[in-house]
């Protein structure tokens, strides 16, 4: 599946805007992503392994926090994950 990487985090993915991973659940996909780009891990997860409060992860157009099975939700190759961090620019 494809994972969309937002601009602020692309410095940790060798500037790639999408990363392709093999995974059968949302959690596996995020693990595969951070295994390949270890620097990303601390920006996405707290030390207790919880998704940080200023980062949202969407499976297609749905926030994974609101999926009934959360990170255990099964995915297929056509699904897309998007990492959406908060941005504040306006000037």
């Amino acid at each position, binding site marked *: 599946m494809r994972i969309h990487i*937002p*601009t*602020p985090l692309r*410095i940790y993915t060798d500037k790639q*805007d999408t990363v392709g991973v093999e995974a059968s659940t949302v959690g596996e996909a995020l693990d595969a992503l951070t295994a390949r780009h270890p620097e990303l891990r601390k*920006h996405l997860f707290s030390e207790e392994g919880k998704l*940080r*409060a*200023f980062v*949202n992860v*969407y499976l297609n*157009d*749905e*926030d994974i926090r*609101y999926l009934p099975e959360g990170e255990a939700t099964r995915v297929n190759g056509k699904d897309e994950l*998007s990492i*959406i*961090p*908060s*941005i*504040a*620019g*306006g*000037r």
Partner: protein
Amino acid sequence: MATTLEQPATLPQLSNEEIARYSRHLILPEVGLEGQQKLKAAKVLCVGTGGLGSPLAFYLAAAGIGSIGLVDFDVVDESNLQRQIIHFTSDVGRPKIQSATDKLKALNPYLNVVQHETMLTSANALEIIRGYDVVADGTDNFPTRYLVNDACVLTGKPNAYGSIFRFEGQASVFATEQGPCYRCLYPEPPPPGLVPSCAEGGVLGILPGLVGVIQATEVIKLILGKGAPLIGRLLLVDSLNMSFRELKLRKNPDCPVCGTHPTVTKLIDYNQFCGITPEPKANSVNGTTVQNGIPQMSAVELKKRLDNHDDLFVLDVREPHEYQIANLGAKLIPLNDLPARAGELEKEREIVVHCKSGGRSQKAAEFLAQNGFKKVWNLAGGITAWSNDVDPKVPKY
């Protein structure tokens, strides 16, 4: 799902001149005479008259909004002109609020502009926002984003939200009765320094145009009560790939400000909430300013020492594309690469670190000092100070 704002008992009449001016609206059944009268009755607060605020306020003024409030305390800078289209070259140095008011009144003399030349704070936000029907947030930092959100929830005013970063933007409508607020999306801000501002990260000039006009569109729709507002939806704009995507947003029942049992019932200290602490006080050691353990060298002092052929190593921690714009001929190791490349530097040698204005180089100097480098200076004010105080031929960017 159209959302209707509270309407005044009687709508204002349009003069013949106004009917001529708004003709293209009046012949749209979705606007019509009554819609145009609603726009004339409406009061909209634009927080910020910068990148987002410029196109936002311009289009709202053109559309016939009766009263626009502007909040800004900044002055126009040359570097604003690439995107803040309400300010002209001749406005450099003028207060933005004056510059913006002039343009809006020149565009539409029927418009009433209310100036709030102040920083929006926890002390004044509720009072300012209460006087308006809709708020459009075009600010540029996390504390003000959370302040505007909470003040909108507490006063029951919808917030047409937009924010931008480099080539990407986000837009939504927050703080309506049924819909989510900004805190439902992001309960907490990122730690300070993690997400660079436009001044640090750059921004494509047209991007605030795209996103600000989306905000203006949402404001107009909220006032007209027509169409499907961006409530419960986050629109993502990627100008580099020119793609627009939409994500679902849900109202969080446990949201601390708009949830069923709110814990935030009045405005708080938003700098503290965003982890922004006052700069550690600089102290002075034998006449040298020391910031967080790092001695600061002025540009003039650096020039003197270089002219003196002192054994100094100058390190530039900016990005390669910044180096191309202006440089002092120093070795370039971007801040993010420094941990991996510190081995290229000599621990015993005296090193002066510089960046654009002194922030990144301070971090780099602190990192080097923690990793056994004996004598590390920060160039106070960066290459900008060098241009100001030593060599004006070096361009400022």
